[in-house]
């Protein structure tokens, strides 16, 4: 499995905004569309679509919305879908805790981050209290 830093250039495919709950569905359908376009297998398409659905919902629920950048990168003729979620919400206080299995918050289900991470090939997260959160995931086709 190639690494993200082996990709020379990221090509921007789309930028979306999450402002309402309808956007969660629309945005994940867009991700599936791009995954299908780069000939990703059906199961992998479902994996990344489900993973981003978790992230988009978090963005909407905890940060009131945010921005999504969908990009494509290639390494030795193998394409990867890179989705970056940026919000300016309250941020995650303890990232390690949020990324551990069995963690729950408010609604009782946590941020679903460990699950989302399992579904993708690479997972990067940056967050500051009251400084927003940025999560980037990579899935190779």
């Amino acid at each position, binding site marked *: 499995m190639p690494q993200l830093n082996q990709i020379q250039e990221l090509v921007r495919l789309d930028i979306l905004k999450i402002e309402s*709950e*309808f956007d*969660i*569905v629309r945005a*994940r*359908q867009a991700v*599936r569309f791009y995954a299908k376009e780069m000939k990703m297998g*059906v*199961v992998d*398409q*479902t*994996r990344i*679509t*489900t993973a981003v*659905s*978790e992230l988009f*919902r978090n963005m909407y629920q905890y940060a009131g919305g945010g921005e999504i950048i969908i990009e494509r990168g290639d390494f030795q003729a193998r394409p990867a879908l890179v989705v970056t979620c940026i919000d300016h919400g309250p941020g995650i206080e303890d990232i390690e805790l949020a990324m551990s*299995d069995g963690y729950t918050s408010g609604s009782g*289900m946590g941020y*679903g981050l*460990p*699950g*989302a991470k*399992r*579904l993708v090939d690479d997972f990067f997260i940056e967050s500051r209290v009251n400084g927003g959160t940025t999560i980037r995931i990579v899935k190779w086709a």
Partner: protein
Amino acid sequence: MKYDPDEIKVSRRIPIIKYGEFLIVSIQVDMHDRLAMELQTQILEEITKTNARGVLIDISVLDTVDSYIGRMLYGMATMASIMDAAVVIVGMQPAVAITLVELGLDMPGVLTALNIEQASRMLRKKMKNKK
């Protein structure tokens, strides 16, 4: 109030059909959160109205089931069982099944079936055993 197609009520979006003593709910659209909640309420109301003993939720068209929808389905099964009706999740796509397992979403005790025929057979057997 401005016309907003996304606001269309559950009854027009997701049909709930009477099928003998059961109800069949065929989810054909990618549900957003509010629709999922309304569907839950609607199904419970229909169970009361029709005295249905079982609800078959057909998700064969759904290509994505995230933890939210998963929890909704699981919640529906629990709520319905409190009303003495059994819920069967029918027609899950293989990719969805694999993803739910990898996501770690546990749905303990929820009945599942490959198709409507097997689901009805399962429910009838269950009801017969109860009597």
